[in-house]
């Protein structure tokens, strides 16, 4: 099968072109090593079944500096991979010179290629018109223009791809380097014939060669670099300097300068949106609006879903005879899965609004405005985007850290993300607050009287966010101390967000979330049902029996650790079950208490909470849990890393067990300590 790789700078319009060429019928494939999703699709048109198009992550050059770039560049060099048959290089015409840096390197690869100019309208507004013919002559490969969003130039491009109208420039560009660099490159070529000049020139610029280079090649490059340094030439800048001299010449010959129109709309918006004072006001207003939408407006459809689920519970109860299966259906399926579905409106709203902000170009402005604060705690301006999406779910948040070039800042961001209050915590918080914080509780500050329950919810959110920054600051001052890293941010032009596409993508993601949570809750509910009712009762009183079940034995095992937090073995089982996912806790407690047989209330969250309140200590007969238990549990859930998906994605993204294990363990300790402190304080105040 013929494979065509789409290659270009980030934001050059690659994905738009990819969608136009493949008609969105793409599949996302995970590539081995670091997981970076590479989309591939089949070229549109029935007679072209044999042409596969792959959309590589954006790169600025063939020198990798981030995991995304590493994957794309390895593929192009054919390292552990079959290189593509053809390259389509997407070039942003409004940013020609910088884009040509990559283009001139790609030309040297010797793979037949084609340059596609995008954003020619934006270039025209900046007073730049590109002579395609001339550019093609200069580069030695064909050049075509398209306007993918409007479809202009697409038929020409498609027929070019079908007829394989690509070109190879046979003259080696590297000949234009200064004599010292040229001789270093040809020397290395002489020693190792299977390493190409372009691979040498793109590796010489690195402080250390990429890990995927074979030993001998890496050594040759290191000695070449040392030789250049001894000649007082810094390859890291000198090679690029030389290349840009050539690019300047190409650009001077193929760009026709016309009069630029007045300041662009984006620049005018930025004068306000990035204003030293006004910018922060706009930012706060937008973020407030997002949270307002999640916690107020999204509640309306959430209520509808809740009543639907309650109705279903009543329906099953009235139409089925009492049995273990009925209990399982109501507590496990309706209660457990339903409890997750209730959060669908919130997740969808957050994903959709984030999509709008990202697509409009505003999120990059947020990164610009916040960088200084993020930098102080060892994070990156770009960390703000993954952290924001972690309010929905840590998994997409951790994956979104891939855009952070600096490995250290990316790691710190990934490390603190599980502390951000995600939507999976909300069902647990809601249940525990309703159960343990009295509805009448008030906190009086002067003349203002605040609702205790609302304050508790806000407190949980604030402490999660504050803790994530505190941990980031601590890490970057101790364990992950390093020199400050790159901050390079491009502010894309504002544009009208593509609402339909964002809607579709949010639905896809929310669907995955529900699917994952639903299946896991169901499986765990059933497993717990079994474990807490086996081995079968044999001449023991129910009280003795409970502890001899499989679940009871495990719960008893962890009980000593939980005693200081005011928790017993039953909560222990719930906490163990919620290691899989936090939201499982409610259904798990339901399964342990066999909720349905003892309670009339149909809403599982409240039923479980009420059941927890009613739980009696078998020896003293007093309530088993107090308000201290409640707040300890809340604090525990705020900080503990109870999420298998997060663990799995951390392992995948960091390529090892070290970080996910360290993360889970340190947050477990943090959660326990926090729970103990909070409980001690609350008990002292309540005494």
């Amino acid at each position, binding site marked *: 099968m013929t494979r065509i790789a789409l290659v270009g700078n980030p934001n050059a319009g690659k994905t738009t072109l990819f969608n136009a060429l493949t008609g969105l019928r793409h599949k996302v494939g995970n590539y081995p090593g670091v997981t970076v999703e590479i989309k591939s699709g089949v070229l549109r048109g029935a007679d072209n079944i044999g042409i596969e198009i792959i959309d590589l992550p954006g790169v*600025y*050059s063939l*020198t990798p500096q981030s995991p995304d770039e590493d994957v794309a560049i390895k593929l192009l060099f054919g390292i552990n991979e079959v290189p593509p048959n053809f390259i389509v290089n997407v070039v942003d015409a*409004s*940013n*020609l*010179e*910088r884009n040509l*840096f990559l283009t*001139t390197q790609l*030309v040297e690869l010797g793979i037949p290629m084609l340059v596609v100019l995008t954003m020619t309208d934006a270039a025209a507004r*900046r007073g*730049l018109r590109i002579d395609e013919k001339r550019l093609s*002559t200069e*580069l*030695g490969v064909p050049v075509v223009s398209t306007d993918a969003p409007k479809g202009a130039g697409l038929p020409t491009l498609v027929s070019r791809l079908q007829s394989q109208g690509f070109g190879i*420039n046979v*003259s080696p*560009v590297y*000949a*234009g*380097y*200064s004599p*010292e660099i040229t001789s270093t490159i040809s020397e290395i070529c002489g020693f190792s014939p299977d390493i190409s000049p372009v691979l040498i020139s793109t590796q010489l*610029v*690195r*402080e250390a060669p990429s890990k995927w280079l074979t030993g001998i090649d890496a050594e040759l490059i290191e000695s070449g670099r040392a030789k250049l340094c001894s000649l007082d*030439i810094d390859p*890291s*800048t000198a090679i*690029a*300097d*030389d*290349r*840009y*001299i*050539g690019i300047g*010449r*190409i650009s001077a010959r193929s760009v026709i300068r016309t009069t630029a129109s007045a300041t662009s709309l984006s620049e005018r918006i*930025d004068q306000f949106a*990035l204003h*030293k004072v006004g*910018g*922060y006001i706009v930012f706060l207003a937008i973020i407030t609006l997002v949270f307002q939408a999640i916690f107020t407006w999204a509640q309306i459809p959430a209520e509808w879903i809740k009543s639907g689920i309650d109705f279903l519970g009543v329906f099953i109860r009235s139409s089925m005879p009492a049995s273990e299966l009925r209990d399982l259906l109501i507590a496990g399926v309706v209660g457990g899965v339903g409890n997750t579905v209730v959060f669908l409106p919130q997740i969808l709203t957050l994903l959709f609004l984030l999509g709008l902000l990202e697509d409009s170009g505003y999120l990059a402005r947020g990164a*610009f*405005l916040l*960088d*200084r*604060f993020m*930098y102080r705690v060892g994070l990156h*301006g770009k960390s703000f985007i993954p952290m924001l999406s972690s309010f929905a779910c840590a998994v997409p948040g951790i994956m979104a850290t891939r855009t952070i*070039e600096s490995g250290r800042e990316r790691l710190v961001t990934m490390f603190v993300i599980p502390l951000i209050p995600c939507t999976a915590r909300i069902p647990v918080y809601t249940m525990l607050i309703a159960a343990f914080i009295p509805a009448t509780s008030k906190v009086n500050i002067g003349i203002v009287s605040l609702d205790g329950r609302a304050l508790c919810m806000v407190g949980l959110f604030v402490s999660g966010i504050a803790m994530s920054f505190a941990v980031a600051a601590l890490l970057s001052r101790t364990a992950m101390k390093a*020199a*400050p890293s*790159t*901050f*390079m*941010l*491009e*502010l894309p032009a504002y544009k009208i967000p593509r609402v339909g596409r964002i809607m579709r993508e949010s639905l896809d993601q929310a669907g995955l979330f529900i699917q994952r949570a639903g299946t896991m809750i169901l499986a765990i509910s059933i497993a717990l049902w079994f474990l807490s009712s086996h081995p079968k009762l044999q001449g023991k009183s129910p009280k003795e029996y409970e502890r001899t079940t499989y679940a009871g034995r495990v719960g008893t095992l962890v009980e000593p650790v939980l005693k200081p937090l005011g928790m017993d073995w039953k909560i222990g089982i719930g906490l163990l079950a919620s290691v899989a996912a936090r939201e499982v806790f409610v259904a798990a407690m339901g399964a342990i208490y066999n909720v349905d047989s003892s309670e009339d209330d149909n809403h599982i969250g409240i039923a479980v909470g009420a059941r927890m309140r009613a739980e009696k200590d078998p020896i003293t007969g007093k309530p088993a849990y107090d308000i201290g238990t409640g707040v300890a549990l809340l604090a525990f859930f705020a900080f503990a890393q109870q999420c298998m998906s997060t663990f799995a994605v951390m392992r995948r993204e960091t390529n090892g067990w070290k970080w996910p294990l360290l993360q889970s363990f340190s947050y477990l300790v943090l959660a326990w300590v926090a729970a103990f402190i909070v409980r001690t304080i609350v008990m002292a105040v309540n005494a």
Partner: protein
Amino acid sequence: MHNVVSDFNKVDQPAPHCECTLDCLANGTKGEVCSVTGPNRCRLAELGFSRGCEVEVARKSAFGGPIEVRLRSYRVSLRVEEASGITVRAVED
């Protein structure tokens, strides 16, 4: 045969007089890159901060935050730390 990069050789030219770093330029002023240093010089050079390139400070943000720079018909934001590794010669408009 079109050689994209000719034998143009700048190495022997004397370095122009460089009096300041990019972060010292005032908002709206221009400079010409003399040298790029620091751990990120490789990426900066690739992005177009090459010797002799004209750059303009387009926006300085509050609290000592990022600096937006205009160069080669595009804009990029850098931290003060990065900008201070780029020495420039101020250019009169």
